[in-house]
């Protein structure tokens, strides 16, 4: 089975391969007829147990551009809210004849449990599981960085020597985890900036360096600053006292933004809390990749779906 469950499983060669295939997909997306027949006749299910319009639509667009048929399953109001188990939900879908599952679930490890179980025998693509991983987000982030840094000469290249600073709630962020693994595999170095309460209580988490002071981290002149979304509910569990203090110490405010080098990329997985973790002026600057991250997301997800559904069904991961 060819699954994409985590970026930690990808080798450097596999990761570059996915990004290169995404380049070809991006070329198709720039044509007038944005369609390839590669997955014609195949059915892909978007199995989303958590609400997410953006990611789901991105996968839907990707599948449709490859001529696949798409079924959307949203947990709210479905049999799951009436207590149906994951196993029964998946087996019911399997009985209808499907060729691939894109799964987003609130439980870490749910796509891995599905891939390892014998309930169904199709490729599984992880669209985000709990606080564990969001591999296609990391891939589209890496694709975006590569494009910005190398332009048309991106094919075959990694991100060696690129310095990436990730700011925010790393502890609860699957985007931070997937990015940390993938960026290191591609030769980049990763630093986290966050209060201790929002970081895993281990040394060098996911192989990254750690700063509790954002200004010290910014003084190291990173090539990319990626800000993560802050959930305001966290302050009720004593992760930080209030949004004002968070922004003051770890927000990419207008003044911090003004001190950034002119080639520093600004990234955000979305959706943004303007004024909380990122100032509006930073989000709207040409150095911000927020909009093209969305466009690149479709190309990367096309590459992932293509490789998963037409590739070697014996191998563990997409390659």
């Amino acid at each position, binding site marked *: 089975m*060819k699954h994409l469950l985590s970026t930690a499983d990808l080798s450097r060669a596999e990761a570059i391969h996915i990004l290169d295939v995404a380049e*070809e997909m991006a*070329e198709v997306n720039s044509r007038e*007829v944005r369609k390839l027949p*590669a997955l014609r006749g195949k059915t892909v299910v978007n199995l989303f147990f958590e609400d997410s319009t953006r990611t789901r639509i991105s996968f839907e667009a990707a599948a449709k551009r490859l001529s696949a048929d798409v079924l959307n399953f949203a947990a709210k109001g479905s049999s799951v809210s009436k207590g149906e188990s994951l196993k029964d939900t998946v087996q019911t879908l399997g009985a209808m004849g499907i060729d691939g599952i894109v799964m987003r679930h609130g439980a870490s490890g749910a796509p891995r449990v599905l891939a390892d179980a014998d309930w169904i025998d199709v490729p599984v693509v992880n669209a985000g599981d709990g606080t564990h991983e969001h591999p296609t987000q990391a891939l589209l982030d890496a694709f975006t960085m590569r494009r910005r840094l190398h332009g048309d000469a991106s094919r075959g290249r990694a991100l060696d020597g690129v310095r990436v600073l990730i700011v925010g709630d790393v502890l609860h962020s699957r985007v931070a985890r997937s990015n940390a693994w993938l960026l290191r595999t591609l030769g980049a170095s990763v630093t986290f900036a966050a209060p201790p309460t929002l970081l895993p209580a281990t040394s060098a988490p996911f192989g990254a360096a750690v700063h509790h002071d954002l200004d010290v981290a910014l003084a190291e002149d990173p090539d990319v600053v990626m800000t993560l979304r802050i959930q305001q509910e966290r302050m009720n569990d004593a992760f930080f006292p209030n949004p004002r203090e968070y922004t003051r110490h770890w927000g990419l405010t207008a003044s911090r933004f003004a001190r950034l080098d002119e080639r520093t990329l600004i990234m955000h997985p979305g959706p943004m809390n303007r004024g909380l973790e990122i100032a509006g002026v930073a989000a709207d600057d040409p150095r911000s990749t927020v909009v093209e991250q969305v466009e690149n997301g479709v190309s990367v997800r096309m590459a992932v779906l*293509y490789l998963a559904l037409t590739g070697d069904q014996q191998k563990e991961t997409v390659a």
Partner: protein
Amino acid sequence: MGTRTVLQHPDITRALTRIAHEILEANHGASDLVLLGIPTRGAVLAERLDRVLADIDPEWGPAGGSRVGTLDVTMHRDDLGRGIGRAPHRTTIPAGGIDGTVVVLVDDVLYSGRTVRAALDALQGIGRPRAVRLAVLVDRGHRELPIRADHVGKNLPTASDERVTLRLTETDGTDAVVIEQSEPHGDGGAA
């Protein structure tokens, strides 16, 4: 286990020169012509043809200009579900597009015809040429679809258990067309 070389560098060069002249003759000149090579070796051949045409016809313009590109057909193959996981190659269409042009597809070996069918399918998503022609270095027979080449470098009758491979200096270090014994109708040279 026989391996025989049926064409070498001088033969290939002569064949390409002849094909270049034929292309111009069939089109009554160079106007509206665009070469699209099918990766990998078809694309190399297209570049060589481009240089020959630049030499023999001033109307063609300089080599490496907007008359030559590549057309990847991987996504349009009819055998994608077989689980082999083919990586797509680059498609580069000349700046002016292909609407209203005469596209000459260039490939190395014409065999079953499925690659060319995929190429015609791929063209549909890119534009609407006035006409499409096919130039191949080798035609080895055994067509499975009603496809024929307009320009052929060499006709090579072969058995289905033989494998025909084109080697080019740019990709393989030497110029040659080689026939080897192999299993019937694998992937070798399937075009």
